[in-house]
């Protein structure tokens, strides 16, 4: 790890001020489960590290009407074990229960995961698949506009994710095919149905990060059943390929995981 200037603000405003001061050379430390390994390998070298762990009011889970609010510093384990989440969006709790391993879930946060937008992360699929809104210290960003590319988001300089708002769906589920080695999503498909709207979001597979599948969504809007996806396929072009999975295999797995997610959402 390279040396850095360590800061521990108490408020979001202070954190934003420090981030602005760092002028693009600052990084926010949330759970650190991705950032710290990256810094250890000297692949990231922020001049300033702004630790959000002492900032008040950034974590917590609350159901407000038909929307589930989750604070950015809420840990995966807390989402997974929350009675509120399990009741409102069981598919989201199950997704959180499958991130990393128990020790990682005890540190990693939803805000950190979303802001990092790792192409193999799980939460971006839930955000996109549920049509979530990402709230920052400056504005509200629809998930459809938030994830702009691999490790890239709509966040501007000095902008900090403070919470995520998930509309509560009628049905939702996530199916992940983990990379055998890292256990990150090699393909993860989140399916959400709210009213007549159906969303299918895919993580792990796309070269530009999480993406939606309009054809699958249209088929499921007609009839929300795994069988509706029969005959549909995803082109391998533009999907990731590595030693564990070729683009063709990923494309195939998207179809399988999507069907399984739909069945799961239907309680089958």
């Amino acid at each position, binding site marked *: 790890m390279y040396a850095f200037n360590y800061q521990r603000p108490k408020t979001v405003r202070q954190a934003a001020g420090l981030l602005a001061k760092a002028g693009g050379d600052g990084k926010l430390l949330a759970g650190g489960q991705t950032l710290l390994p990256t810094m250890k390998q000297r692949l990231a070298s922020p001049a300033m590290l702004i630790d959000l762990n002492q900032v008040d009011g950034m974590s917590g889970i609350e159901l407000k009407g038909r929307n589930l609010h989750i604070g950015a510093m809420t840990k995966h384990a807390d989402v997974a074990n929350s009675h509120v989440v399990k009741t409102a969006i069981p598919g989201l709790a199950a997704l959180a229960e499958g991130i990393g391993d128990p020790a990682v879930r005890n540190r990693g946060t939803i805000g950190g995961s979303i802001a990092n937008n790792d192409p193999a992360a799980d939460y971006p699929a839930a955000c996109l698949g549920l049509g979530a809104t990402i709230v920052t210290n400056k504005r509200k960003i629809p998930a459809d506009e938030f994830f702009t590319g691999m490790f890239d988001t709509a966040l501007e300089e000095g902008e900090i994710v403070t919470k995520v708002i998930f509309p509560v769906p009628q049905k939702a589920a996530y199916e992940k*095919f983990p990379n*055998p*080695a890292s256990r990150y999503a090699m393909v993860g498909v989140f399916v959400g149905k709210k009213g007549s709207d159906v969303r299918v979001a895919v993580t792990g597979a796309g070269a530009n990060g999480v993406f939606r599948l309009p054809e699958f969504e249209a088929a499921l809007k007609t009839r929300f059943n795994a069988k509706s996806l029969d005959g549909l396929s995803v082109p391998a072009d533009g999907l990731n390929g590595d030693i*564990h999975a070729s683009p063709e295999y990923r494309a195939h797995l998207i179809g399988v995981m999507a069907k399984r997610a739909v069945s799961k959402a239907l309680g089958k």
Partner: protein
Amino acid sequence: MSATGIGAPVRRTEDFRFITGKGQYTDDINRAGQAHAYFLRSPHAHAEIVKIDASKAKAMDGVIAILTGDDLAADKIGGLICGWMIHNKDGSPMRAGGHPALAQGKVRYVGDHVAVIIAETYQQAKDAAEAIDVTYKTLSAVADIDSALKKGAPVVHDVAPDNTVFNWHLGDKAATDAAFAKAKQITKLDLINNRLVPNPMEPRAAVGDYDAGTGVFTLHTTSQNPHVARLVLSAFIGIAPEHKLRVIAPDVGGGFGSKIFIYAEETVCVWASKKVGRPVKWTSDRTEAFLSDAHGRDHVTHAEMALDDKGRILGLRVNTKANLGAYLSTFSSSVPTYLYAPLLSGQYNIPAIYCEVDAVYTNTAPVDAYRGAGRPEATFVIERLVEVAARERGEDPALFRRKNFVTQFPHQTPVIMAYDVGNYSASLDKAMDMADVKNFGKRKKDSERNGKLRGLGYSAYIEACGIAPSQAVGSLGAGVGLWESAEVRVNPVGTVEVLTGSHSHGQGHETTFAQLVSDRLGIPLDQVAIVHGDTDKVQFGMGTYGSRSGAVGMSAIAQALDKVIAKGKKVAAYALEAAEGDIDFKDGRFSVKGTDKSLAFGEVALQAYIAHKFSGQQLEPGLKETAFYDPTNFTFPAGVHICEVEIDPDTGVTRIDRWTAVDDFGVVINPMIVEGQVHGGIAQGVGQALLEGAHYNKDGQLVTASYMDYTMPRADDLPSFAVGMTSTPCPSNPLGIKGCGEAGAIAAPPAVINAITDALGHENISMPATPQRVWQAAQQSQRKLAAE
């Protein structure tokens, strides 16, 4: 059987320190005033070093010294060695390229050692490493066997212009050709034995320390064989004479072969400690471990089996190309030769065998022994061949094996080995019973109903362990003898210290060895201490690998214990005023035959030390005996493993539904520990078959250099195992032990692949059978079915 004697599942005495965090591993050891070493490694697979400019780095905070291959040369420090000479078919010696601990003029793999930076802290050393300016002239690399053997390929070592280390053979070619000429069936297979990274959980580490007052070097290191390390560092590398070099291998967190070898890092740490006048510590991180620990396996093989019309095996022909990496590691040359081809007969009567092996240099990390070393590769060849041969004949693979089993012992194979004892059918019967093979068909139908494919695979393995008779291995090219030593020190109060040349890095020697002592001397377990891993305490030893600690190490202890009892009888005779021939020793007491006069073991020990009852002319005082045990034969553990898998053809995921292992290890000292060894071995074998594979790209970059890309078996990848035993005691050592450390890793890969191919209905799958590969293979099965 007593509660702590031979055969008892005694709970391990060493566990207390490990479960309370009090183990002492090398990285836990800190010497006063120590500095930290960091190795600058080559980012290129193949390059000439034009210039190393360390001037900027040398001026950085905390930097004490930056040393390169030139400094080694100036100090006349020799290169790392390969201790087993293999001869080519024409009798000429193998071609061993130089292996300096720090590169001299050229780097040959990614991770090769360019310079060492010694600084006050590890971070400072690492910072300075980044400031060293190395000018490389990059060369084309050869990252695999095929590209290394192409005409005009880049040359790794000038001594081997065709990148061939040796072309070696074993067996009778003419007899084998004759067998094939009269064959009614010839079964052919092309096999890849995938390259693995050993990955003991404790990364390698070393602390070198030089005492300028006495001129003695001390090296704490993660070694399976500290005496061999000292011998090599002294006699070959020339750091210091043996009596001025102490090597300590404290608690070691797993080895699996990878900590046998003498590596560049410990060599440099001990040498540099004198150069900088400070203790020098180095601890590998996991990425360095992937890059620079010796890898395992990496064979490409074409094999053919000849059979008569009744399905009896007539002959076996094997051609193997073995990747040995960029340099010859300590025992690398023995692995694809004498640890491989002599096991090709498996459990079968095969009249004629001929095996050719070409060993190849590539621009990859050195390859050497990894759990099983050669024997897993041989077992994969023979067990895949018999399975496919049976399938081609439409015969039940278990019956086919049984028909060809060796049943008469001793049995001389055509490839060196003389099997001493065994009962292969007994293991097969028991395994089939435990695995409920008779209901497999029902289970397969159930799986099919759920859209899954189910398969069952056998592996009837044999291995040669208890390595090894020194004279025999000497005649085959070994640079060392492979006996073991033991010293039994009885203290005046009757407690016992056993000094052994074996080394425990997870095997539980402190318990198992103490059980033997307790059993033989009739004293409680807690009065026995097992001492190992320190060249200042143990006079000499060959260490732990090749499942030798029980068969060879404990035999040495047994021999020394016999001497202690014999001396004890002499002492007891004087103390009890009886003739030596009238003294019996049983259950911890020396007694005079036909009388009630007796002394406890501890009382005799005291008599031996106070020496009041005999004169110095009559008997030497004291009670301490030494033995060197040299085995007379290899031992031949054997058994049958049965793997049952269920495949999801939609995803390619293979789930192991059942694992049955029945092993014949001869006499077992502690069944709990032995079963634990079987479990661990199976996990590594399943890892090879389903999960693990070291992958270099064509430029020689290691793609799988961390747990992000190299698939380690985790708890949810494996089932619980059903483990059973049969026993035919080994006749060649005093304890009847055969050895158990490698069995699982040897048996498992073909069992898994035979099960998968059974499920798929074709043979076209290679290791590791990852979900992607199995999915592709399952599609091929469907196409095959559709065509039929």
